[in-house]
């Protein structure tokens, strides 16, 4: 009896999103989108065509994905590290460092479109050009979030440190850095899709001939390969979701003490 109610409970939960998904896919697949919105199948390929393009070109997609994942991860890690160290600096020297936080926010607001061509000029190789774009666009979110985590502490927490006669170093290692961990994960999660976007836009501007971004641009230009372009976008989304999931798992292990890990859902 209980088992059945669990199953039916899951049905109730899953039914609406599945129904909605089936509706949208069917809407496009059956050609309704074309008649209603006046799109041509060539522009918006039906989902079945995207799926078969994904399967048919799986090897090529996997190869190009690797080209894109490398700079995405490298840039995200280095950029987040720089952002975190900046936050530590600002926390330690709040008076002088305050303006630096705003510089970080400003840099974060610089459009990728402006960054990618500059980096292309600086580096002749596509890899460092892409990495440096991602570094720059992932610094800001980390600096802002980490600063919040390092500095927004209850008074009593700091009083306790003072009562223990803690040194500045100890306040960081025992209190501020652990307290900032949940915020670090928030920033990393924000950075996943941002970094992926940075690499792809970087590839639009690069002279290279591989990578998800290049292939999207390339296949869209050619009339009969549009479904392949969509398949590459699908691949990018899948990669982002995988990185995001890995971060969620890591967060569960590392900060299972934090309130965010105990909410239902």
């Amino acid at each position, binding site marked *: 009896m209980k088992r059945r109610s669990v199953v039916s409970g899951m049905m109730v939960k899953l039914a609406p*999103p599945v129904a909605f*998904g089936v509706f949208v896919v069917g809407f496009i697949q059956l050609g309704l989108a074309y008649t209603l919105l006046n799109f041509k199948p060539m522009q918006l390929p039906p989902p079945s065509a995207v799926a078969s393009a994904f399967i048919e070109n799986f090897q090529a997609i996997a190869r190009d994905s690797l080209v894109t994942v490398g700079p995405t991860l490298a840039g995200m890690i280095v950029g987040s590290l720089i952002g975190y160290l900046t936050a530590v600096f600002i926390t330690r020297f709040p008076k002088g*460092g*305050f303006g630096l936080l705003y510089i970080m926010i400003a840099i974060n607001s*610089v459009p990728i*479109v402006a960054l990618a061509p500059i980096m292309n000029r600086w580096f002749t190789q596509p890899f460092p050009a892409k990495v440096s774009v991602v570094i720059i666009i992932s610094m800001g979110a980390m600096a802002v979030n980490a600063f919040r985590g390092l500095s927004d502490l209850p008074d009593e927490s700091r009083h306790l440190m003072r009562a223990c006669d803690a040194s500045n170093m100890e306040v960081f290692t025992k209190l501020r850095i652990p307290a900032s961990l949940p915020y670090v994960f928030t920033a990393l999660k924000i950075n996943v899709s941002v970094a*992926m976007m940075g690499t792809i836009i970087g590839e639009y501007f690069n002279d290279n001939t591989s990578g998800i971004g290049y292939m999207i641009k390339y296949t869209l230009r050619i009339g009969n390969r549009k479904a392949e372009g969509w398949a590459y976008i699908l691949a990018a989304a899948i990669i982002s979701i995988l990185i995001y999931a890995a971060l969620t798992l890591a967060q569960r292990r590392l900060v299972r003490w934090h309130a965010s890990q105990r909410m239902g859902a």
Partner: protein
Amino acid sequence: MKRIDGRHLSLILWIVGFFLMWEFAAFLLDGVLHDPMAAKKLPYFHAVISETVLNADNILLQSALTALRAAEGFLIGALVGFLLALLMDLFGVVERMALPYLLASQMIPILGLAPIIFGLVKDLDMSRVTIAAYMTFFPVSLSLLSGFKSVDIEQRMLMRSYASSKFLYYRKLALPYSVPFLFNGLKIAAPMAMTASAFVDTLSTQNGIGSIIIVALYGGGTTGQFWPAVLAASLLGIVSYVLVILAERVVERFIPRAPKEAAGEAA
């Protein structure tokens, strides 16, 4: 008051320092390393400024064009995001239907879709507005929904005890409470809308600040305008962010929120 002045001073010093470092790096590249590409890689800051002044008319015109389309898309996206968040909060079915897709589509490199959308609608302005709206809509919708969700349970019960209508519940409690959440979403969205609009510019070479960048990059007649355009595009992003902050300050006057716990009474 004195402390605020100190913070302003720190900001000004960092900005000045940033441009001095730029000037110094350009000097290293040009005067010390004698890089033949120095003027392309990193021109002197003062050179960029004088180039900007020379081309001020065009740069301003194209920036305004890009910014206006971004603003249109931003407003549409914010409105749609607002309505969707409201619908999701009102009807559990809508939330269960839309939220998984909303979360998943955050992972789609939306800018990567830009060429496709441009191919679909064929109109440059429409594409700019659509992509900007699309990019605005996600963060606004998700932030606002999390605001609605975090309304204190006892506050809700209070409204319930008054037999409040749904409309009054949102007007008196949920909306004012969620204003900071809404602005968090808008702050993320504004520079993204600018990026989107400028990126669509690059897909064609007709107009917009992004088109100047792309034309100059591939050796068009406007090579000298590359750096001024990059500077202008960056400023657009920053200014859009600042504008949202200013808007938030204005709204805060009418809907004040409790100041954060005073920090640093005894370090």
